[in-house]
């Protein structure tokens, strides 16, 4: 019936045929091919779901492309002080001499991308910006994830009035447009800093994660294997943390890779609106993009480079997330 292979283990089949071939011709008329009552069980270690998902991911070109982009980005971020040819915070005398109110110097020897609006090396600022961008993206996602998992687990594990209460809070948060919410939270802070940006973006992500997790937790709650665990007399805590949560995390993990991409974009938007980190000694792509828009008529390249970096990195995470989603989907397994 199923149009997929009944036995996806050709190697074991071959082994068995080989074994049969070696026993054949020994003169017995009756072939010794009986299986035991329960059928054959391979004599090897088991393959968990994660292991089989990983085996498929390793061969998925989309995932590999996403992973390469992401790894390059992370390496760049970690090693930026050593990779950057110049100090990204220093106004370079070589560039300053050509910098006038009407002219931002372009490419020059030693400065392949030229100068920014204050006479600093654009390439070095892009490389240095990777670190700040990564910090913003990763921490915003992590905080959002932590909040979302907490709320989602509470709602999904207990149900009843706790679920109703948590979900109403989440609904209220979702009803405010996300950027508006982030702007409001960022504006609440006495003075904007890197961390206000992170917290603002994380807060926006919390309801998304919470809703997603609660949904799959509820599905798990009604599932046969959770019922089986209850029937077995497993304690409530073990059911939540051993059975429900691990089986519900798949979509949340996928979502978090996508959120990583969007939180970089959100950070860019906040910086653009002037709510980003005002300290421009720590270059950040979003902030660079924000300030570059002032010169976009005459010097579009100032906006183009950070924008391109953001797009490529966001694409890397998105590709990874998409193929991860496909690999973790139980329906695509077999």
């Amino acid at each position, binding site marked *: *019936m*199923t*149009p*997929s*292979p*009944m*036995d*996806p283990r*050709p190697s074991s*089949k071959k082994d*068995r*045929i080989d074994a*049969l071939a070696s026993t*054949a*011709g020994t003169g*017995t*008329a*009756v*072939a010794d*091919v*009986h*299986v*035991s*009552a*329960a*059928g*054959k069980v391979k004599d090897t270690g088991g393959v968990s779901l994660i292991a089989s998902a990983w085996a498929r991911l390793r*061969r998925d070109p989309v995932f590999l492309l996403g992973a390469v982009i992401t790894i390059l980005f992370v390496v760049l971020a970690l090693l930026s002080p050593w990779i950057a040819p110049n100090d990204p915070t220093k106004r370079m005398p070589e560039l300053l001499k050509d910098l006038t109110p009407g002219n931002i110097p372009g490419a020059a020897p030693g400065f392949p991308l030229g100068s920014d609006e204050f006479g600093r090396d654009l390439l070095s600022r892009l490389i240095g910006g990777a670190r700040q961008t990564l910090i913003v993206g990763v921490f915003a996602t992590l905080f959002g994830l932590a909040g979302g998992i907490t709320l989602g687990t509470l709602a999904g594990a207990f149900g009843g009035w706790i679920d109703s209460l948590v979900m109403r809070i989440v609904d209220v948060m979702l009803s405010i447009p996300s950027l508006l919410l982030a702007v409001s939270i960022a504006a609440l802070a006495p003075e904007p800093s890197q961390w206000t940006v992170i917290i603002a973006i994380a807060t926006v992500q919390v309801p998304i994660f919470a809703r997603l997790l609660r949904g799959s937790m509820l599905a798990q709650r009604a599932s046969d294997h959770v019922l089986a665990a209850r029937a077995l007399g497993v304690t409530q805590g073990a059911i939540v943390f051993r059975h429900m949560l691990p089986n519900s995390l798949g979509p949340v993990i996928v979502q978090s890779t996508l959120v990583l991409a969007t939180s970089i974009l959100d950070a860019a938007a906040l910086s653009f609106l002037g709510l980003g980190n005002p300290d421009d000694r720590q270059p950040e792509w979003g902030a660079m993009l924000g300030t570059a828009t002032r010169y976009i008529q005459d010097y579009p390249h100032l906006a183009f480079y950070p924008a391109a970096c953001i797009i490529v990195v966001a694409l890397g995470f998105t590709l990874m997330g998409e193929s991860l989603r496909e690999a973790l989907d139980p329906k695509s397994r077999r």
Partner: protein
Amino acid sequence: MTTTTPRDTNPMDATPTDTSNVADRDKARRWQQGGSEPLLKVRDLRVTFQRQGQEPFEAVQGVSFDVHPGQTVGLVGESGCGKSVTSLAIMGLLPARGNKVTGTVDYEGTNLLDLSDQQMRDKRGKDIAMVFQDPLSSLNPVIPIGLQVTEVLERHRGMSRKAATPVARDLLDRVGIPDPDRRLKDYPHQLSGGMRQRALIAIALACQPRLLIADEPTTALDVTIQAQILALLKELVEDTGTALVMITHDLGVVAGLCDEVNVLYGGRIVERGERHDLFAQPRHPYTHGLLASIPRLDAPRGQRLNPIPGSVSDNLPWTSACAFAPRCSQPIEVCTQKMPELVEQHQRALRCFNPVEANR
């Protein structure tokens, strides 16, 4: 225990309603004496699924059988035996990509596999109709039942909506849906499972097809509802002379309904025969084992069942052995060395090196 039981209490010989006796069954077997040309000739049908990054998998590995007008042919087997894929291949309903179908499906001189999508669409519903397992997902949920029947009439018989409506009403009545005038306007979700399956049969019958393929039509239904649907199918076949291909895993269903039975295992037919003959003397160890492993309602209690060991995942590849050999009760050496061929003899066909002894 059963001292003073009056005669009519045993349900096996109880009185009411349905009356299909041996004489009636003989009428349905006109195709046998007439020596008619087969309506459908399936020859060496092979279906290979090819998925990206996976080894190609041959679900149907050379299936051949005939269906004569008015005949009911059963395809029986367990999950993975290729019975449903066979039916979908005949109907041209396999997904357009990821599979390869070879062989011939000869319907009155036309090879259905050669037809274009458009030509096949004209054939489907008009000449060949199909009834599926899950009536809810086979019906369009947002269109009333009546409209779904008239649509077929409009498309294949060129009727106007107005002319088609009373015909649709009669069809619903014919398949035993009570109060058909009202039900014409009902949506699928408003009907019970059994009524939905009736509606689906009405749609299949709309164009008086000469061949009806039923893929597990009663598997999703309760026993009492299953009995209703089977009685309906039996009656329709006898009244209209439609040929029926019945696909099922349930040997009980086959025993009561089919004239000829094909038993499939691992994508190939392993045994074929007229139903009385086949059930009385199953020769293939698989057929024999299946019959021995099913608890029967009319058998004395207290006997242990004789299961077939293992599962289909223990199969050997047909190319170099008998796929069933590892699970077989009486394999001989040659069973693991080459594939047995399907040998036809006395209106029986058998694919086995060491068949079960005939017990008569």
